[in-house]
């Protein structure tokens, strides 16, 4: 029986904030593959192409037939708990601080036995499903969950270390001017966030939904402009210590590529908002978030970037915009490494064209704001790192993984002059 999470008490200002420590971070190269799948919430193991045996732990040759042809595949996650133990003391500071900690031996239906974290509602001798999620060191770890959902199961202490659940947490959405920002504010409020700060730049310039935004429960609209360093410094000075989840919805998008524009002005705006805006946010809000990664129930837990999937491969119709997102993607990888010591997840949510004015001439499918909002909340609940929302993004990343060059050529077929 999982006890429902209680709203956290007010923080005692006299008490030192707990410094984040991390679970063991060393893995072999092959072992690191687990994190690539955990980043997307996939349960994958190596399967031998020659004899079909599923392997665990990750290795270089099949333990049954010694074939070198091992391929990572999504495998069935069903298993049975053979044994459990409650760790009461550990030489690893991270676990020492979090005992009692329950782990178990689970035999997977696909073959191997694994050592994994156990959800409190799992029993020995009972069937379970195993998930592969990122721990606070950014590596994939396995956890067994009860086969069917149980009440408040997301509140399990071990599971919360692997997820970024917005419940009782304080969220900052950097730009409320867009429909996406407003949909996110609603979704985060519905997901149980204690407060949803929404940034609003140039409030002297009205926009649709400006009033409705202020009516959403627990929303507080604050002045914030990612192109203005002082604006961010000032806001971070006020609320920086209260941001547990930051969602960057600031975006500047215009059509056009390298040659067909007549000047670099929109390109400068795209870089100013999409790339430098991210960097300014990182400098103003990052340090406090990183320091609060282990700060109780409402610890800092996630930084979410909403990016164009064309960051991976350029779409000439929005070529300059795509390039600015490529810059932001690279920077987000840097930010992810910088945030990791604090155990704060940097999550990139990639979408194809969104349903808005600038993408109006593009054919469907496009991502509507409510779908984006739902996707972000689900990804936070699963503690993911790389999220591909919508059909276009899912399709594109599959093609990119198959061959980046073929994708480049496919995407960049333009009309003859």
């Amino acid at each position, binding site marked *: 029986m999982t006890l429902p999470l209680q709203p956290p008490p007010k923080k005692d200002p006299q008490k030192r904030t707990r410094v984040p420590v991390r679970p063991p971070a060393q893995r072999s190269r092959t072992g690191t593959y687990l994190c690539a799948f955990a980043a997307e919430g996939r349960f994958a193991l190596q399967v031998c192409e020659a004899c079909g045996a599923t392997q665990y732990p990750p290795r270089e040759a099949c333990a049954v037939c010694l074939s070198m042809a091992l391929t990572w595949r999504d495998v069935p996650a069903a298993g049975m708990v053979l044994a459990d133990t409650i760790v009461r003391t550990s030489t690893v500071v991270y676990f020492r601080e979090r005992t009692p900690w329950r782990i178990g031996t689970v035999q997977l239906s696909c073959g191997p036995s694994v050592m994994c974290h156990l959800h409190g509602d799992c029993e020995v001798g009972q069937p379970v499903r195993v998930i592969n999620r990122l721990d606070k060191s950014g590596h994939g770890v396995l956890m067994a969950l009860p086969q069917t959902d149980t009440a408040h199961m997301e509140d399990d202490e071990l599971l919360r270390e692997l997820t970024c659940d917005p419940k009782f947490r304080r969220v900052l959405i950097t730009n409320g001017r867009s429909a996406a920002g407003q949909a996110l504010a609603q979704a985060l409020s519905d997901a149980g966030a204690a407060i949803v700060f929404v940034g609003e730049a140039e409030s002297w310039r009205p926009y649709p939904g400006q009033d409705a935004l202020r009516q959403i429960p627990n929303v507080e609209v604050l002045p914030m402009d990612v192109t203005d360093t002082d604006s961010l410094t000032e806001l971070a000075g006020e609320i920086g210590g209260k941001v547990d989840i930051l969602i960057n919805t600031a975006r500047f998008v215009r059509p056009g590529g390298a040659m067909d524009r*007549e*000047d*670099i002005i929109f390109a400068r705006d795209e870089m100013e908002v999409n790339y430098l805006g991210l960097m300014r946010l990182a400098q103003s809000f990052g340090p406090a978030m990183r320091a609060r990664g282990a700060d109780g129930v409402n610890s800092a837990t996630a930084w979410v970037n909403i990016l164009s999937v064309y960051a991976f491969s350029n779409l000439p119709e929005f070529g300059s915009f795509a390039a600015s997102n490529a810059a932001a993607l690279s920077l987000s990888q840097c930010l992810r490494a910088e945030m990791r010591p604090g155990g704060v997840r940097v999550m990139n949510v990639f979408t194809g064209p969104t349903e808005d004015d600038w993408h109006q001439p593009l054919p469907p499918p496009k991502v509507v704001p409510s779908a984006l909002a739902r996707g972000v909340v689900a990804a936070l609940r699963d503690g993911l790192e790389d999220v591909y929302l919508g059909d276009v993004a899912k399709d594109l990343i599959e093609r990119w993984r198959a061959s980046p060059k073929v994708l480049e050529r496919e995407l960049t077929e333009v009309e003859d002059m």
Partner: protein
Amino acid sequence: MSLDNVTSAAGQASLSGLMMAMATGDVEVVDLTHTLDPDFPVIILPPEFGQCARFRMEEISAYDGRGPAWKWHNISCCEHTGTHFDAPIHWVSGRDLPNNAVDTIPVERLIAPVCVIDCSAGAAANDDYELSVDDILAWELKHERIPSGCWVLMRTDWSKRRGAEYLNMRDDGAHSPGPNPAAVRLLVERDILGFGTETVGTDAGQGFHFAPPNPAHFYFHGAGKYGLQCLSNVDQLPPTGAVLIAPPLKIKQGTGSPLRVMAMIPGRCATPAAAS
């Protein structure tokens, strides 16, 4: 017809007289400002430090598809690009003084008398020419004791230099004229309004070797005085008697700005001034 009882009739007469004098050429206006263009040199600091942005212009539209009936640009630069004003808040010694930023300087201080000390001969012979106490005293002997509240400009004709010769960078830094610490202290004693030069800084190019380093910035701003740099046409000003107009942009807590510096001088037309 006066608007109300307290408007000064004498003041109105002076203003009308000034407008008349400008119309007749009895008062001329000299432009002491370099054109702001991307090629104008800016001060260079050691590479570890933040640098002064160059002046850049980006065309937004030019009566074209981007804007059919109009033309305009976005501009960007540093507060200290081109002909520019230094406020006391620019230097650590002036950081805590009242009204020390460009938006808080009392506006009436931005129109003031100006004294011009000619160091052009010295500067022609020596790139590192120092304005000294002797130079100041000699000027005062010849003209008048420098009054409180006036600008003092150091004329060096440096503004006539072009290209690399202007910053004059060598292996050990820039070499350009400026005041030495004693001269600066004397001018502070005189309670001048501010100090102006034709070079890229109020301090000499090698001014960081003085004690204290960069004495013009340190002492002037520490005493609430202002600076002007990259002036041109200083050779057109009389040694004394002109009025300098130097209002910087009203930037919130700004440390300076590029500006239009101009001087009103007695007309230089062929007709001698009418006897007053």
